[in-house]
């Protein structure tokens, strides 16, 4: 991996994955970074983008200005509390759906050592504990911002050769309807007395996830999180496309929603929100019955843009156990066994903020370009 930091006048968008999710790092100029979500590179314990910044010798405590947590469950926030603790100057943004009596109840029941082993709720519990510690010390950043449609989360200016370029990050979701339906979901997850303790299972739909619209100069980026399309015009992508006012112009870079799944593909995203032949980036997801993107998804992406990239090869690989004893035992007890998240990669886009010069895409690890057959 290249170890050079982006130049002061250079924008960078990097996506890392898979690792039960993905992580994104944005450089908005002059050493300022924004981090979205968190995932762990296989066999490592530090969030992938944090490790990347450390490798670039970035001073994480001061350089990271914003952390956005687009989900509340496992697959996008492993290591999030580490991120919050280390990035002491970063404002924190979470989904507006989490300001909820029922989510608070889930934190009380599932956070704080009542249940050994990590989970998304435990990470959130740890994040709030860090905020408590900061309050006690009188540290400035001791609350989180809530993401809702059209909210300005971050604003900055980059001055280059006498010209000022605006940097703005807006959230486009979750919608009011999604926030309300999330309350029912949280309530249903509160356990019944007399039942066994177990980890919270990630919800099957992701309507509370936070979609971001980033503007750096005249360059726009749409980070689609895991938002899916729905039949309800007040949730999913429809409400963003029809009602969000923060969307000005069209995005040249699209972090494809929900690992490229068809359930998140709305043709209006490509028609209304994206420039012609945008750069599309995504990471695969391979857990349980979900194996995304599938072949049809890759073909669809390749047909929509010649500039589509993915961080690793999707699909599960049969796991070859090295130890003979273990292999014999496992083969007799299982119908199948496969490796998850076998690949790992980074897609990095850099370009000059002023005029887009030196625009380049670099692929690291298992990342590759999706091409039409």
């Amino acid at each position: 991996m290249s170890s050079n930091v982006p130049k002061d006048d250079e924008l960078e968008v990097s996506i890392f994955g898979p690792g039960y999710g993905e992580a994104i790092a944005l450089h908005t100029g002059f050493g300022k970074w924004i981090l979205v979500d968190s995932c762990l590179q296989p066999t490592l314990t530090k969030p992938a983008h944090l490790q990347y910044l450390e490798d670039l010798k970035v001073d994480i405590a001061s350089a990271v200005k914003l952390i956005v947590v687009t989900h509340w469950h496992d697959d996008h926030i492993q290591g999030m509390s580490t991120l919050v603790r280390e990035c002491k100057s970063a404002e924190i943004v979470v989904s507006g759906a989490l300001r909820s009596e029922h989510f608070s109840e889930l934190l009380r029941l599932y956070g704080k050592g009542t249940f050994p082993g990590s989970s998304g709720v435990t990470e959130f519990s740890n994040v709030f504990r860090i905020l408590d510690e900061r309050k006690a010390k009188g540290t400035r950043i001791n609350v989180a911002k809530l993401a809702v449609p059209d909210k300005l989360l971050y604003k900055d200016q980059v001055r280059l050769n006498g010209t000022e370029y605006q940097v703005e990050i807006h959230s486009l979701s979750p919608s009011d309807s999604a926030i309300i339906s999330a309350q029912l979901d949280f309530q249903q997850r509160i356990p019944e007395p007399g039942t066994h303790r177990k980890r919270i299972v990630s919800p099957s739909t992701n309507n509370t996830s936070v979609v971001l619209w980033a503007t750096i100069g005249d360059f726009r980026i749409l980070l689609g999180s895991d938002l899916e399309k729905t039949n309800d015009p007040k949730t999913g992508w429809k409400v963003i496309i029809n009602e969000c006012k923060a969307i000005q112009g069209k995005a040249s870079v699209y972090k494809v929603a929900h690992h490229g799944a068809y359930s998140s593909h709305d043709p209006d995203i490509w028609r209304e929100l994206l420039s012609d032949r945008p750069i599309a980036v995504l990471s695969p997801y391979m857990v349980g019955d979900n194996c995304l993107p599938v072949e049809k998804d890759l073909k669809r992406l390749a047909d929509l843009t010649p500039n589509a990239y993915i961080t690793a090869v999707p699909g599960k690989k049969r796991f070859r156990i090295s130890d003979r004893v273990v292999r014999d035992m496992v083969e007799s007890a299982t119908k199948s066994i496969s490796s998850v998240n076998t690949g790992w990669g980074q897609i990095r886009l850099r370009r000059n903020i002023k005029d887009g010069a030196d625009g380049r895409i670099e692929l690291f690890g298992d990342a590759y370009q999706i091409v039409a057959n």
Partner: protein
Amino acid sequence: MPPQIQVQGVSIVLIGSFNPAIFQPSWFALHNLLRSEEADAATIDIIHPDVAHFKTEWLEVNIVRDRFQISTVQESYYEALRDLAVGILMLLSHTPVKVMGINRDFHFDLASEETWHALGHRLVPKGDWNPLLKNPGMEALVVKGIRPDAFEGYIRVTVQPSGRIKYGVFIEVNDHYVLTRDEKEVDGSDKARLILSERWSESMQRGSEIAQAIAKLGENV
């Protein structure tokens, strides 16, 4: 040949105030902490207001009024042991618990008398002892260090010749946490539960690394 672990175990020790009489195998099964069959098959040595001691296939329980210990030598049950401690702390959340130890112990086979003696010489050089004692030999070494984290307590390592293996060494790593110094504080069990939930892997790894490093000291001397 590097030192080989022949036996290893884990124990969790709590210092506080306990009622040994309640810790019967059937109580564990009633609260879903052990399987009913395990509880029924337990070998009970004593259940008494002052002391409780019983064993199951994988678990040993030793409780007196001020000391609670559960342990196993079955590597497949280390996490089950942790969960057992967490479960007990959940059920007895108002039990005063002041101190907790997460302990790893190992018997290493050093394979040769030469390496065995070399380790003893390395840990306790005999130069200063020779004028004082005839044929001095190390019987026990205890070294304590401060904790590498924000918790109060220490890490204490005990090294002794193994009582189980000829030319073996016994190493115990005691990961000691002080939970509260105030007699009136009742949140010691909450803190213990938090540590067991969040620090278990770290404690296990630290114990293993320390023991492996010490066991190797007799090599290439």
